[in-house]
């Protein structure tokens, strides 16, 4: 249990609400220093899982450990938690709210104030520190909430569906800050249903569907494994080689052709044959499967598996 390499560790965790299984027999671990994505459609149990990690809910079965121990207040104070349903004290001044959020996690007021002002400057909100939170736009409020999440310099950042509804520029700013924090040693646990975001940020992902874990893998390994043997090509010259038995189907996608290979390893043979036949190859890319496709593929498969045969 006392494992310094794991920031979060779940073993056989289940949680029911009445007759509804929110989380079933879930295992996963978030290595220290990683950016870990908890992915799944809405209602798949991500938020319940995070609430158990934060000690807000208690699992019916199984064990949740945080920094190698129970998620008690002392350990939770080392976590920066940005819930999906996040709010603010609308009537408070921005700076007072941030100092308060630091204070309840044990940061002395003067330290919290200095840090808050630094963060607000960094996020172009310096001029707003004395204003009431309700005077800020929704996007600015999200940035303030983010500052509130990191004001106590947590070792682990848990972000539940972060940055939703932010404009692309601010989303970029916050994502680069998250990557920055991670580079400085902060572990990140990110829950999202936005596969693009997960692809940009995560090093390892855990897919949940209908309260169960579907897969849990390093993102690069996952992609390599899920590669289906699709090649994007652009060429001039003869095209007879396209009727090779190695090529199952040819689809036109925009300006390029997608060749679906009968065997994922056949791309070398196909390329050789095309050159032999005199085609001038302008482009020949192995198409990486998008996380989105993998996700749909697996969630579909797992859902099908739940049906009685």
């Amino acid at each position: 249990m006392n494992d310094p390499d794991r920031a979060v560790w779940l073993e056989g965790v289940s949680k029911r609400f009445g007759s509804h299984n929110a989380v079933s027999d879930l295992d996963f671990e978030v290595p220290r220093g990683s950016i870990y994505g908890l992915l799944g459609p809405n209602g798949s149990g991500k938020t319940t899982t995070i609430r158990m990690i934060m000690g807000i809910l208690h699992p019916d079965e199984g064990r949740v450990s945080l920094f190698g121990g129970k998620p008690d207040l002392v350990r939770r104070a080392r976590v920066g938690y940005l819930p999906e349903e996040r709010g603010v004290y609308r009537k408070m001044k921005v700076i007072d709210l941030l100092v308060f959020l630091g204070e309840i996690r044990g940061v002395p007021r003067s330290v919290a104030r200095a840090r808050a002002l630094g963060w607000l400057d960094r996020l172009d909100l310096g001029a707003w520190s004395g204003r009431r939170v309700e005077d800020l736009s929704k996007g600015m409020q999200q940035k303030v909430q983010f500052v509130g999440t990191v004001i106590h310099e947590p070792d682990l950042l848990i972000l539940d569906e972060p940055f939703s509804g932010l404009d692309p520029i601010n989303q970029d700013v916050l994502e680069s800050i998250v990557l920055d924090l991670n580079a400085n040693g902060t572990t990140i646990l990110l829950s999202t249903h936005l596969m693009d975001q997960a692809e940009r940020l995560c090093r390892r992902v855990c897919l949940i569907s209908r309260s169960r874990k579907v897969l849990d893998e390093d993102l690069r390994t996952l992609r390599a494994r899920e590669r289906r043997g699709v090649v994007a090509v652009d060429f001039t010259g003869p095209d007879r080689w396209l009727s090779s038995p190695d090529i199952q189907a040819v689809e036109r996608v925009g300006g390029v052709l997608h060749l679906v290979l009968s065997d994922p390893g056949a791309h070398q043979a196909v390329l050789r044959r095309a050159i032999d036949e005199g085609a001038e190859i302008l482009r020949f890319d192995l198409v990486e499967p998008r996380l989105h496709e993998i996700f749909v593929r697996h969630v579909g498969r797992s859902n099908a598996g739940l049906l009685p045969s």
Partner: protein
Amino acid sequence: MSFRNVWAVIRREYLQRVRSRWFVFSTVGGPIFLFAVLAVPAWLRGGPDRDRPPIAIVDGTDALYDRLADDLVAAGFPVERARWTSTVVDTLRRRAAAGEIDGFIMLDQFTLESGDAVLYVNRRPSVVQRGAIRSAIVRAALEVQLEQQGVDVEAMLSGGGLAVEMLSAEGTQDGEPRFLVAYVGAFLLYMVILLHAVAVMRATLEEKTSRIVEVVISSMEPWHLMLGKVLGVGGVALTQLVVWALTGALIVKSGLPTLIAGGSAVGATGPGGIGAEPGPALDLMSAIPDTGLVALFVGYFVFGFFIYSGLYAAVGAMCSTDEEAQQAQLPLVLFLVVPIVFVLQVIENPSDPVSVGLSLFPLFSPILMWARIAGGSVPAWQIGLSFVLMAAAILAIAWIAGRIYKVGILMTGKRPTLSELWRWVREA
């Protein structure tokens, strides 16, 4: 660590509220309003007015002037004596026209016999002013006449004296019952407890609906958050009470009530009345509660506030909208209204077993026990017992409400039924 959390919550809650416009308005506005309620009518009745030119009194009887002058000055009319001469009316008319005097009163033998007199003025006096002057004249005439018969008019007019000798041991340790203090105080307790308990409910509901609560709860025990809110709002309430008490004490010290009472005494005797009743003047003076009573008021407020704010926090936590909360708090309001319904009966029959029983019930104690104490006779052991029972109730409520709060604060959707609530309490 955990107390630091509670402290942070208390601090936030307290400062946010004390800095709010509403707080400043009600804290400063309260005493001003009370002062206005007391002082303005007195002033309208013709209270002290030093700038007003005197009224000249021409006393043809040579017996009335001293008494009448005293009464009129007390009622706020400066007076001066004018000698009876053959040209006095002309002289006074000229002086009145020049604004040196406000007018003049002619008294003669008929005044002594029937109370008739003539008032010459530039401006028509108000009904109240006229009544005040008339009753002062009648009173002076009566006093002169009666004293010649050897009657102690002063003692008779101040209502005689009905001494009460207790035959039983009950309540001998206390002074006169003070209905006004007991009733107004009980009502005030009802209002401040309800007002601030509802504030706790609203704050809880706001945290819940704005979703800030999840962040806060992830850093502290829900029970600590609830405690912090209750203490923070309670601190605001106490601050307000202390400000009110201090301004009240200052007003009393400044002698203002005496001035107002002096002004209103004449008005109360009114046209035709010759001080048959002490009027509000005496009530006002006796209505100023002593320090012990004020301390008990604060004590009962604090305990009552803890009892009800715990319950209201639970209601706030179990609801998701204002409308729901308004409905869910109704049973609690009933518990506060019942004592108000019974308060008169309890003040009138403080030793009645029903009164004793009701006032010892912890949910009613804050209002009824204090009213009984203010009203007159409560043995010390009952006061002590009421505090012990309230303390027990606070612990029980904190335990139950804390559990409801813990579960409810993260719940969304429809309000729980009673059986669901019970499950929360058991399982939390």
